């Protein structure tokens, strides 16, 4: 039993989106509406410093949950609170960061340094005059190999470089909660390992991380795994206790275990375990 008070508490989140109707249906029932329920009472909590993976098949509600946690979408009912403050409030939004491979904040016409400066301005944080000197973020920048990217236009960054830049951008504002949306999808194995080390270090200092992923070997490397299916958390716990649920949610009941399927990633995970 973990005695640390939870950083994030999600309770009974429900969300349905209206879906466009064909013209014939609109003409028959002009005021009718067709909805698709994406979240059906999603509940969980994350204590301070925990790294949890969020896995589930396409359409399980992972992205909607991430968008609600970022304050970009309002739930129909239920609540999500960061340190007892509703995530839709600016005070909570200041402490939540999202990192993803295709980050629209990294405008193609700007250099990475200029895009980072703009992002800090959004958070009301004074940007350093010289981005080559990262001050308190120097180690983080070096670990993610950011200095070599600063003067490049975002348009010429590779997918992996953009993902690293997005993670750096997200961590620069010193969030309480980091949501990493499928970052490892575009990272090479060495950088995947490095990113995991960075996150491990950040979580050691109090960051809470929610890693949205389809990569089961990546999920198995996290201390806790939330399996989403049908808009709710179907299983929650360490990988060995939720593996069957995770595989079943993807329709892979008879597949070999994730680590055996992906020996390279399994080896990396083992390395991280040893390093940690």
């Amino acid at each position, binding site marked *: 039993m973990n005695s640390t008070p939870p950083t994030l508490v999600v309770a009974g989140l429900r969300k349905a989106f209206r879906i466009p109707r064909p013209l014939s249906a609109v003409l028959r029932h002009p005021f009718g509406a067709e909805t698709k329920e994406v979240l059906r009472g999603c509940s969980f909590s994350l204590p301070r410093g925990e790294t949890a993976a969020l896995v589930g098949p396409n359409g399980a509600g992972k992205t909607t949950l991430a968008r609600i946690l970022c304050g*970009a979408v309002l739930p129909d009912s239920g609540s999500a609170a960061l340190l007892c*403050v509703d995530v839709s409030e600016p005070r909570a939004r200041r*402490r939540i960061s*999202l990192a993803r491979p295709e980050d629209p*904040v990294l405008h193609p016409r700007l250099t990475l340094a200029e895009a980072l400066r703009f992002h800090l301005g959004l958070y009301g944080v*004074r940007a350093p005059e010289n981005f080559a000197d990262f001050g308190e973020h120097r180690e983080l920048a070096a670990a993610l190999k950011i200095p070599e990217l600063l003067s490049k236009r975002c348009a010429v960054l590779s997918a992996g470089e953009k993902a690293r830049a997005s993670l750096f951008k997200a*961590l620069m504002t010193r969030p309480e909660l980091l949501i990493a949306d499928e970052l490892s999808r575009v990272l090479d194995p060495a950088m995947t390992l490095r990113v995991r080390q960075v996150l491990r270090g950040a979580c050691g200092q109090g*960051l809470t991380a929610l890693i949205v992923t389809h990569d089961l070997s990546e999920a198995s490397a996290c201390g806790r795994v939330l399996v989403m299916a049908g808009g709710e958390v179907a299983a929650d716990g360490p990988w060995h206790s939720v593996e069957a649920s995770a595989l079943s949610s993807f329709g892979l009941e008879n597949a070999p275990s994730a680590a055996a399927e992906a020996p390279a990633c399994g080896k990396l995970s083992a390395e991280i375990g040893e390093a940690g």
Partner: protein
Amino acid sequence: MSAPMSTTQPGGRAFSLSSRTSSLLRLAWSFLRRDALIDLSYRTAWAFRLAGLFFSCWSLFFLGRAFGATSPFMARFGGDYFGFALLGVAFTMMTGTALSGTARRTREAQLLGTLEPLFASPAPPFGIILMFSLYPMLVSCLQALAFLGAGTAFFGARFALDRLPAALLAVALAVAVHLALGVISASLVLVIRRGDPVSWVLSSLTYLFSGVVYPVEVLPDFLRPLSLFLPATHALELIRCALLDAPGTPLPMRPILALAAFCAVLWPLAVLCLRSAVRHARREGTLPMP
């Protein structure tokens, strides 16, 4: 990595106000800097823009030579059609940007997918929408100045500058009114996710009935009252009175009162519209949707 979130602000209200002001200024500077960097990276477009200004000025000069002195409607302005039209066009450069710039940039952000991360940041949505128009407004003010400068330097336009403050007041009030209308238009874009009909309709009406390139006295009697419902009519009346009329002519107060009334009605409405539109978009999950 993270610091505990404080629930109270030290120093009370004074601290909160000053920190909010500095956050807003930082936000404004961030948008201004980013938009300038992006815009200045398209250098050829700037060359075409400047050439376009010069040629517009030139064509107005020839129109003035052809029709200005002969028209009885121009008598009040000393037969100076060129100066009359120059002021009208320079004015609509600024108000047009205030009106349509906000909605256009909101739509661009929707299409680029930047609107959702912007609204997910702690910056207030109202501030973000206003900041969208900051750089375009600055550019359009510079363009209007360049336009008037070219008219004066190359084509001999003359303005009475001793009553310039009154003209600037009219411009400031008119920009404020059009900015409020722009925010309402941006709210509509957030909801319907299409080009903005408000700006299009208002711009067309302004060109037709506000006396931008011809005086409202030209309009038929039954259409003339319509011009009173357009803020540009009042602003242009005061601007031309201040810069073109003989120095002894008294400045009318009615345009200032009318523009202030427009502001008093439209700004609260703009705040309400934007708040509802942002809530609607967040509820429907349509912030990033084209």
